[in-house]
């Protein structure tokens, strides 16, 4: 499947492949039709993490990509060698060998010290920035740029990698499932009586360019679900509503928050991996991008729908020219979404007619 190689503005241009595990079918739609597939009493859960400019350069031989922030404020970072995003990550040169205590300068007054080097994978570093508070964040935003990959045609601007409702900059890559959602669509969803809920999940790197390291992804990522959101979402479940996760990261966070059997609020870390054998306790549906069979993202989709259906749908999307990756098209996996619901659809249409006079 071709990648979307330029950023797209939020103007409802994305296609929406709707997959229904109940009818074992799929259908082509557009992202603006998303509200039609959600019912009163459902909930849509968004990851409201903003995306950091997490790529930092310390000279031509060394790029650091921030991966995750530890509770003590230090960071786990991945080192990459010569070259930039135009070069596929796996073809990047070996980064210089760094040892604990090495000082790194990224320009704009941002400096860090290497605290530890991972004994198994020396490209993984724990670093500590030397600045604090306002000076740290100001310098980080000046020195950093968004992480991006070789399929993009041009450097990304910081605004290219933000969702419309983003707040705290916890993610190091765009939580891209929510990227096509404009407020016109979100408010229409809310007007249907669907709860718009949120959590914050520190979405991590999607690729390191190193197979052994990629096998260790995702590393434990922090998330926070407010007590209030947890309460509202428990209410959704109790009343028989469906919880639709926007993104694989939201699925992982919600399912991690439900391991006790009940969805609980709080701030946690999770490296929960989901796949075909997983039983989802909380999530009833997923809005995501198009994920290729064989990837860990695809494996997570198998928690929602059988592989055979997903593979058929993916082949169809490929033939139809759907685009993948963070600026690509969307996919909604939701049980019963393609059952005839003519009465309800008609009601929605009638309401719109009344509103527009």
């Amino acid at each position, binding site marked *: 499947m071709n990648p979307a190689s330029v950023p797209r503005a939020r103007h409802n241009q994305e296609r929406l492949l709707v997959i229904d595990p109940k009818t074992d079918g799929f259908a082509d739609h557009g992202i603006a039709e998303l509200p039609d597939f959600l019912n009163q009493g459902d909930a849509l859960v968004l990851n*409201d993490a903003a995306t950091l400019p997490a790529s930092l350069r310390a000279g031509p031989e060394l790029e650091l990509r921030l991966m995750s922030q530890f509770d003590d404020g230090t960071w786990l970072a991945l080192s990459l060698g010569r070259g930039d995003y135009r070069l596929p990550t796996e073809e990047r040169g070996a980064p210089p060998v760094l040892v604990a205590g090495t000082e790194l300068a990224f320009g704009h007054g941002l400096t860090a010290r290497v605290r530890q080097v991972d004994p198994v994978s020396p490209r993984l570093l724990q670093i500590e920035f030397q600045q604090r508070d*306002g000076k740290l964040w*100001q310098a980080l935003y*000046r020195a950093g740029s968004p992480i991006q990959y070789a399929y993009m045609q041009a450097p990304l601007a910081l*605004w290219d990698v933000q969702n419309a*409702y983003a*707040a*705290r900059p916890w993610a190091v890559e765009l939580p891209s499932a929510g990227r096509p959602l404009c407020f016109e669509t979100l408010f229409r969803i809310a007007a249907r009586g669907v709860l718009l809920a949120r959590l914050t999940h520190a979405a991590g790197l999607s690729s390191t360019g190193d197979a052994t390291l990629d096998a260790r992804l995702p590393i434990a990522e922090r998330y926070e679900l407010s007590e209030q959101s947890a309460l509202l979402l428990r209410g959704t479940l109790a009343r028989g509503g469906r919880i639709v996760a926007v993104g694989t990261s939201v699925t992982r966070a919600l399912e991690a928050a439900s391991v006790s059997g009940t969805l609980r609020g709080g701030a946690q870390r999770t490296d929960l991996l989901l796949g075909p054998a997983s039983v989802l306790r909380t999530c009833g549906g997923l809005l995501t991008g198009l994920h290729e069979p064989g990837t860990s993202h695809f494996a997570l989709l198998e928690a929602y729908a059988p592989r055979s259906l997903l593979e058929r749908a993916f082949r169809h999307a490929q033939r139809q020219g759907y685009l993948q990756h963070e600026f690509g098209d969307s996919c909604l996996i939701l049980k019963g979404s393609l059952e005839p619901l003519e009465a309800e659809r008609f009601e929605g249409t009638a309401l719109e007619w009344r509103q527009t006079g």
Partner: protein
Amino acid sequence: MEISGTATLITGASRGLGEALALELGRQGARLVLVSRSLAALEPVRRRICAAGGEAYALEADIGSKDEIYPLAGAAAALVGPVDLLIHNASDLGPTPLRLLLDTECEDLERVLAVNLLGPFRFSRVIAGSMALRGRGTIVHVSSDASVNAYSHWGAYSVSKAALDHLSRLWAAELGERGVRSFSVDPGEMDTQMHAAAMPHADPKTLARPADVAARIAALIRSPATPNGGRMEVTANGSQP
């Protein structure tokens, strides 16, 4: 809106009304991000707030520059969390002495609009999405009586403030149902550097003290009675629509 504990961002916080608002809201327990074009000018304000037991961070940015808005919003949310109270106070008068429209360079109008109108729009656009999703937030637009009165020589500034007032009403119209409040406030004539630049011959004794005006604006922020989309005038006896 309760001010204590509220993540708050104030632009143009190094002097005048912005500084007074920072001190007042800091005293009332707001968690503050202070913004101005000069970090050096902000630092004394930040220190005063922190020395008094408040929480304040300083960020340097030009609100008129498109490239600086997302970094500013990101850094602010990293420091204090999702911003719940956004105060658009930074303002550009244009060249002084103030000029007749026929003598106003188009570029000067562009710059004034960039700082006084486009900047607040861009900044609100980045921050109000999260407010709408969370169902909580207040946006304050510092306006001027030049927004409703056509004073000779005040052209560029006056036009920008009229548009800012309307921008404020539009935010309220579109986001009011989602729990976001927006209003503009005309602080009246104050003893500030900006006022002196615009009207060098005014007698400071006839002008309001920024600290008094700031306390009244804080009251408007706290009060549930402040009309959403309203334009409030701060006077010596209180505030009124």
